[in-house]
């Protein structure tokens, strides 16, 4: 094996010399595998048969419904229909608290131009969340100028 190969990452096949082989080995029976491989195959098969139908029948419809809601909310967001976007994002957040609220916050901040309460609602959705610098910048982009100073100070608190 040459130096630039990743050693031991994969196994190898060796087509050895016929004469040498026939002296040392007798051929293995075809399609006969060790017991532990059969058991591992059986367990993997059972795991697959239990989980994939469960995923298709229970998990996937729920996830797909959530996905469609996000797509719809994103479309509202892109069309600057922030109030509709907030409603949908909120619905998802209430159902699944681990939902990334950044877009919800951005929509709230965009609405705070007309309704000042939405600034505080937006901040509320940031409590306990860790945001990257780029996310903070994105949120600030939607924030009216008068809140930016407060946001910077508040943001440190909510972190």
């Amino acid at each position: 094996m040459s130096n630039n190969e990743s050693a031991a990452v994969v196994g190898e096949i060796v087509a050895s010399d016929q004469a040498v082989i026939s002296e040392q080995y007798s051929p293995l029976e075809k399609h006969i595998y060790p017991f532990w491989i059969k058991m591992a195959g059986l367990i993997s098969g059972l795991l697959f048969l239990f989980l994939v139908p469960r995923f298709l029948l229970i998990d996937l419809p729920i996830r797909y419904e959530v996905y469609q809601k996000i797509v719809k909310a994103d479309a509202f967001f892109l069309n600057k229909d922030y109030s509709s976007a907030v409603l949908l994002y909120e619905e998802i957040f209430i159902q699944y608290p681990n939902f990334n609220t950044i877009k919800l916050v951005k929509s709230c901040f965009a609405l705070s131009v007309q309704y000042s309460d939405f600034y505080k609602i937006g901040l509320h959705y940031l409590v306990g969340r860790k945001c990257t610098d780029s996310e903070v910048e994105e949120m600030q982009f939607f924030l009216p100028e008068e809140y930016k100073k407060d946001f910077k100070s508040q943001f440190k608190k909510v972190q």
Partner: protein
Amino acid sequence: MFVVIPGELIALLTFPGVVLHEISHRFFCDIQNIDVYAINYFQPFSKKAGHVIYRPTNNFFHSFFIAIGPLIINSLVCILLTFPAGCNAYLDTDFVDYSSSFVSLAYLIMQWIGYSIGFHAMPSNKDMSGLKTMVHSWWARTILGNFTGIIGLFNITLIGPLLRILFAYGLSMVLPRLFLG
């Protein structure tokens, strides 16, 4: 800064893939009626994680399918086992978590087996090396050379593991793209 993870450790963490890799070689030997003399499905902490010793054949297609057996079988198994994980990644709905801890653990185990198998889908350079001497026309050599070269990228120490991870991830996206895309 790069951190090179030893191949032995990678093989240990992804051993289901190594085992299926060797089974795939053996399976193609068996169905093509080529004698297999010895097989090591997995050897932990070894430079050679596994190997298959089989009767040499002059038939190019036999050798070719034995060599690329893992690419076919590991890829198919990876596609199936990573289907739920692939859907979650494709739909970006990882935050939707309501399953019991037992079911979540079962998903996690299946995901680990699936990605491990996908990681080891690529034949090694050694697997492909014998094929070059079996083709004589320039165009066949060119095609095989390019194919072997692409596979060789997956066996380079620094970028190989990363490419393998991307390949396994790509495989996990096949069914979600077909059914949800």
